[in-house]
C-alpha cells in the first residue's frame, strides 16, 4: 500500500529520534497531508503553547499518493503547526520534488519538536537521520541552501526544504521553500522552523513506493494524465493564474491600493497576457506532473535585470495592483526577493500596501521608512520595503515583520483601519465587497483569510450566485467547498488539478483505495473532509481562537464602500448580511450560534475523544439557560 507506514519523531534539542507505525484507522480517518498533520499536531501539543516555544511541534506530512506516479499528487507534502500569525492552526502544502523524496525515505510524517542550540539542518537519508551543522548557511536563501547542501552531501538528487533569512529572524510571514520556487507559503511556517534553529530538511529516499492495485492504479493515472492535457487545466498551462488579473478587474473585484479601489487602471500592463508575451521564459513542471504550470519569469532589462521568479496571480497581485504598482519588472523582482528571504508573497505584498496606506494617511512618515517614499505606485519603495521586512532592518522592517495585525497594533493611531487580515493572516487578491460568498468563506477559514480553504470565490466569479449579497444558502456552498478542499489537501492533490476529477469525490475515493488498498466510499471520504474541518476548528477552539468573534472581516470590507464608478459602486458587506451568512454556515455545519461544534456533531464524525474541547466552551451557556428558567 502507498502509505509508508511510519511516523518519525525528532527532538531537535538532542537529535534523538523515535518512530511509530501509522495506524490504519488513523490513516483512513485523516487521510494524510493536512488532515493527518493536524491530528498529529493536536496529539503532540499542549493548549496555549507559544508558536515559537520549542514544544510547539512542526509536522511535515506526505500524502497517500506522494511518491507514486499520481500526477499533481505524487510530489506533495504538507506542513502543519501553530501559526505565529494567527495563534491558531497553521497548514500549508507544496509540490515540486521534495514530497516524493520524503515518502521514498519512508515517512508519512515527521514531527519536529525541541530547539537546537545552534543552527542545524536535518539530513534524512532513508532510515538514517542526522542533525548537521548549518552555521555556514546562516542568511542564505532557500535556493542557495539547497545548492550548498547538495554539493556538500555529494548527491545531485537530494531534495531540500529550507528557510531563508526571514525564517531565521522569526519574520512571522516566513515561508519554507523547496525546489527553488515551491513554497509552504502561508501562515508563517518558516518562522516556526527558525524558532527551532532548523534551517533545512534535506532528504534522500530510495525505497520503492508501492500501490495496492498497480494495474488499475496505472490505468487510473493514465486517464488523469490524459485529462490534464485537456480543458480542465488549460488556464494553468497557457497564461497561468495571472489570467485572473483582467478577469477580476472586469468584475470590479481586483483589490487595488490596499483595497481602496476594486479596479486597477494599470491592469493591462500587469495582465497574464502582457506577462507571458514579455517576461515568461519557460514553463516547467513538478515531479510526476505533466500539466506543467510553473511560469518562470525573467526580467530582461532595466534595474531589475535578471530577476527570476515563478509568477502566479496571488503574489503578482499582492505586490502589483494591491500596491498600485503597474511594473512587471518590479513585480518579478519583489517575488524573487520574497523567495530569496523566504517569505509568503501574498502576506508580504498586503503588508507593504498596509504600510503605504498608513504613509498616505500620515500615520507613518519618511522618518519611519528609512527614507522610502511609500506612496502607492512607487515600485522601488515596494521592493525596498520587502527587503527591510525580510531582514527585519530598521524600525519599519522590524514592525512589518510582525504581520499586519501586530504591526497595526504597534503603530497605533488609526492603523488598524488599514490592516487587511482575517485572524491575523493577510487577505489574498479577491475583493470581498464584490465577491460576497468569498467574504463568508474567507471569514470562517480556519487558517485565516484564504481563497484556498473553500474556493468560495468561484461561484461569485462564475456568476452562479448574486455576488453582491450574502443570503441563506451560502453557508452550504462554503461548507461543501471546505470539506472538498480538506480532502484535496489531505490527499495533497494540487488544486490546479481539481478540475480533472470530473466525478469529484467519487474518483478521489477510488484513487485513494487503488493506492492504499483501504476501502473508502465516496460518503466516507466526504465525511473525512468534514471531520478534518471540524478538527481544525477544535484546535482553534482549544487555542482560544475558534469562536464566532474570530470569524471576522477587515474594517475596509465592512465600513468603506467601494468608490469605483460602475456596477460595484457603494458595495460593502453589512453586519446584518454577514450575520445571516455566519448563522447559515454554523447551522449547516451543525455548530452552535457561537460557531462551536456540538457534541452530537463530533460524535457523528467519530471525534468522540475530542468532545472535552467543546464541553468546556458550551457548559456556561447551558447553565445560564437553567438559571434563567429557575427565575
Amino acid at each position, binding site marked *: 500500500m502507498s502509505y509508508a507506514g511510519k511516523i518519525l519523531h525528532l527532538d531537535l534539542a538532542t537529535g534523538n529520534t523515535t518512530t511509530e507505525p501509522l495506524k490504519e484507522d488513523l490513516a483512513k480517518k485523516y487521510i494524510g497531508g493536512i488532515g493527518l498533520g493536524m491530528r498529529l499536531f493536536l496529539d503532540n501539543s499542549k493548549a496555549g503553547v507559544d508558536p515559537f516555544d520549542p514544544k510547539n511541534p512542526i509536522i511535515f506530512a506526505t500524502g497517500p499518493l506522494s511518491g507514486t506516479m499520481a500526477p499533481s499528487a505524487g510530489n506533495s507534502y504538507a506542513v502543519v503547526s501553530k501559526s505565529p500569525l494567527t495563534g491558531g492552526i497553521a497548514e500549508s502544502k507544496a509540490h515540486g520534488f521534495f514530497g516524493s523524496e520524503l515518502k521514498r525515505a519512508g515517512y508519512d510524517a515527521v514531527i519536529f519538536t525541541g530547539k537546537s542550540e545552534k543552527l542545524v539542518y536535518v539530513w534524512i537519508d532513508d532510515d538514517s537521520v542526522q542533525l548537521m551543522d548549518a552555521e555556514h548557511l546562516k542568511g542564505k536563501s532557500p535556493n542557495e541552501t539547497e545548492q550548498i547542501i547538495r554539493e556538500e552531501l555529494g548527491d545531485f538528487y537530494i531534495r531540500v526544504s529550507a528557510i531563508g533569512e526571514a525564517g531565521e529572524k522569526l519574520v512571522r510571514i516566513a515561508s519554507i521553500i523547496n525546489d527553488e520556487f515551491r513554497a509552504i507559503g502561508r501562515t508563517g511556517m518558516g518562522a516556526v522552523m527558525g524558532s527551532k534553529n532548523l534551517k533545512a530538511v534535506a532528504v534522500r529516499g530510495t525505497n520503492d513506493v508501492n500501490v495496492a492495485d498497480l494495474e488499475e492504479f*496505472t490505468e487510473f493515472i493514465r486517464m488523469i494524465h490524459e485529462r490534464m492535457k485537456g480543458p480542465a487545466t488549460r488556464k494553468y498551462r497557457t497564461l497561468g493564474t495571472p489570467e485572473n488579473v483582467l478577469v477580476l478587474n472586469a468584475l470590479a473585484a481586483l483589490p487595488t491600493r490596499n483595497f481602496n479601489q476594486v479596479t486597477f487602471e494599470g491592469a493591462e500592463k500587469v495582465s497574464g497576457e502582457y506577462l507571458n508575451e514579455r517576461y515568461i521564459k519557460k514553463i516547467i513542471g513538478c515531479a510526476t*506532473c505533466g500539466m506543467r504550470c510553473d511560469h*518562470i519569469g525573467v526580467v530582461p532589462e532595466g534595474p531589475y535585470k535578471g530577476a527570476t521568479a515563478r509568477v502566479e496571480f496571488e503574489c503578482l497581485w499582492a505586490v502589483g495592483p494591491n500596491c498600485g504598482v503597474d511594473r512587471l519588472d518590479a513585480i518579478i523582482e519583489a517575488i524573487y526577493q520574497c523567495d530569496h528571504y523566504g517569505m509568503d508573497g501574498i502576506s508580504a505584498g498586503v503588508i507593504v500596501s498596509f504600510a503605504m496606506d498608513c504613509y498616505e494617511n500620515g500615520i507613518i512618515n519618511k522618518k519611519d521608512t528609512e527614507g522610502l517614499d511609500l506612496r502607492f505606485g512607487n515600485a522601488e519603495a515596494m521592493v525596498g520595503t520587502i527587503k527591510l521586512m525580510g531582514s527585519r532592518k530598521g524600525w519599519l522592517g522590524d514592525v512589518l515583520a510582525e504581520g499586519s495585525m501586530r504591526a497595526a497594533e504597534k503603530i497605533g493611531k488609526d492603523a488598524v483601519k488599514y490592516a487587511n487580515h482575517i485572524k491575523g493572516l493577510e487577505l489574498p487578491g479577491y475583493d470581498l465587497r464584490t465577491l460576497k460568498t468569498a467574504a463568508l468563506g474567507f471569514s470562517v477559514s480556519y487558517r485565516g483569510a484564504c481563497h484556498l480553504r473553500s474556493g468560495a470565490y468561484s461561484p461569485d466569479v462564475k456568476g452562479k450566485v448574486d455576488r453582491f449579497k450574502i443570503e441563506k444558502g451560502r453557508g452550504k456552498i462554503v461548507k461543501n467547498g471546505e470539506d472538498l478542499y480538506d480532502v484535496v489537501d489531505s490527499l495533497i492533490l494540487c488544486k490546479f488539478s481539481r478540475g480533472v476529477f470530473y466525478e469529484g469525490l467519487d474518483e478521489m475515493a477510488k484513487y485513494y483505495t487503488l493506492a492504499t488498498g483501504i476501502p473508502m466510499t465516496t460518503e466516507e471520504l466526504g465525511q473525512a473532509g468534514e471531520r478534518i474541518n471540524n478538527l481544525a476548528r477544535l484546535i482553534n477552539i482549544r487555542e482560544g481562537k475558534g469562536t464566532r468573534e474570530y470569524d471576522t472581516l477587515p474594517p475596509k470590507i465592512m465600513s468603506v464602500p467601494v468608490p469605483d464608478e460602475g456596477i460595484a459602486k457603494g458595495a460593502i458587506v453589512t453586519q446584518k448580511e454577514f450575520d445571516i451568512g455566519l448563522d447559515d454556515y454554523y447551522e449547516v455545519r451543525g455548530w452552535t450560534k457561537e460557531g462551536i461544534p456540538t457534541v452530537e456533531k463530533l460524535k457523528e464524525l467519530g471525534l468522540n475523544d475530542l468532545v472535552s474541547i467543546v464541553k468546556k466552551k458550551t457548559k456556561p451557556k447551558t447553565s445560564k439557560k437553567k438559571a434563567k428558567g429557575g427565575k
Partner: protein
Amino acid sequence: MVTIHEKKFVSGDPDKCVGCCVCEYACSLEHEKTFNPTKSRIRAVRLNPFVNLAVACRLCEDAPCVAACPRDALEQSEETGIILVDEDKCNGCGWCIEACDYGAIQLHPETKVVYVCDLCDGNPKCVEWCPEEALDFTTKDVVAQKARVTAVKKLLQEAKKTVSPQ
C-alpha cells in the same frame, strides 16, 4: 547488423522537456513494477529552471561501456544496438559506468549489477508517457534530418525577411 535507419534510441528535446520526471516513474513502473526513480534507466536532469533534459542510453557505435567491461558481461545487440547485461558475469565493478559519458548505465541499488535502457522491447514506456512529447523513439539520422530541416526553415525565413521585396 542493424543499420542506422533501424537503430532507434530514446532522444530527449531540451526545448520541450519540463523536468517532470514522468519518464523515470514510467520506467520503474515498467521494469520494476513499482514507483522509484532511483531505479529508472532514464534520468531527468534539471540544471536550472531553463535547462531540463532526460538522458537514457545513446546506443553508441562501438559502445565504450562494452569495451570497458573486464568480465565480458556487456554485449551490444546486433539486432537493436541495445546493451545486454549478463547479470551472472557482472560484479558491479563500475568500469562501464566510468566509460559512459552520459551516466546512462548505472548500478542497480538492489541487484548491485549494472542496468541500462533496453527500449522496452521496442516500445519505450517513457516515450509513451512523456506528457510534453519531449521524448522521441527515433534514429540518429532522423534526428539529424529534423535538425537540418529546422535550421533551413529558420535560415530561409530570416533570409526571406532580409531580401523581402517592399
